């Protein structure tokens, strides 16, 4: 009797994406990033962020559940050392007891999983450490998809832990 074949990374990613129930669509710097809605802990106004002098993370957000770091990304998903003024919102993501927030220009709720028809990109075509697992077209514009776990792993660790 032979053992069942191990699923590939792409198959595992597909399974995880298949389990989503609605999406949060974050827009920043011309990029659009969709994360499963249930992986977002909360949405806050950027006005509530305590901005830090140039560095990473670029700010901190204090809520009833604690204080945690806030990051800002550019269109290429590079980590910025400041939060641009036009980033008016921030979405807190949580995985494995760690909470990190991403600042963005706009955030939209897509109730239906089908609103984002995700197609896998072979993982080897992404740079090492890239948190993305798929792409979709929404209104003829590219949307990248990622899970909170991969995004949190992608963001640099703050010098002082601020786990919620």
């Amino acid at each position: 009797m032979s053992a069942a074949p191990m699923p590939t990374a792409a198959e595992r990613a597909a399974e995880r994406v298949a389990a989503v129930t609605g999406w949060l669509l974050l827009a920043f710097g011309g990029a659009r990033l969709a994360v499963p809605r249930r992986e977002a802990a909360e949405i806050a106004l950027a006005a509530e962020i305590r901005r830090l002098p140039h560095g990473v993370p670029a700010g901190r957000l204090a809520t009833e559940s604690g204080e945690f770091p806030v990051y800002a990304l550019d269109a290429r998903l590079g980590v910025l050392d400041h939060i641009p003024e036009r980033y008016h919102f921030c979405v807190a993501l949580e995985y494995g007891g760690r909470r990190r927030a991403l600042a963005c220009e706009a955030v939209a709720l897509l109730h239906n999983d089908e609103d984002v028809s995700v197609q896998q990109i072979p993982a080897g075509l992404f740079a090492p450490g890239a948190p993305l697992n798929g792409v979709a077209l929404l209104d003829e514009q590219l949307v990248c998809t990622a899970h909170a776990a991969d995004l949190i792993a992608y963001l640099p660790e703050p010098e002082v832990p601020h786990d919620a």
Partner: protein
Amino acid sequence: MTPEVHAWLLDLGYGHRTAVAPRHMAEYVFDPALHAVPLAQAHLRGVTRWRGLLVPLVDLAVLLGEPRIEVERRRAVILAYRTAEDAPIRFGGLIVRAEPKEIPVRDDMACPLPSEPEAWREIALSCFSHEEQPVPILNVAALFPEMRAATEPALSAPLAVGSSAPAEPQPLADSHIQEATGP
């Protein structure tokens, strides 16, 4: 006389050429719209919509170490491949510089893989000589690896997939072309 099969000859630019079996060739597309993907390897130019699918478009010349060039109207071929015998068919695109050309290939045309660029050893099945120049036969599935390489120091680094292809000439008609052209 050795049996003759056919292959599609693809011009990758910078003098690089490759060949694929006819069953890999899905379509030749002219001036496909391209959507850039963030955090992609340098040779992934983006994704394009093709028959309702988003297909990754790879510039093999960049993987072979050449600089990116932008052209006014790009050309591409959409290739079909499987990652395993019983796996579903997948599609990936390859930037080309000219219209694909169908050519005959025979076993007696086999030749060693070119020693440079080294990336050929990761993505070529074997090689044959055409017009007195070596033409590597592309391992299409290796061009679209499902797994990230264990060590990739730079975005432009060659893919580290599978084992190195042998440098010695390999039989063509009974393996890489003929088998791939089966029903």
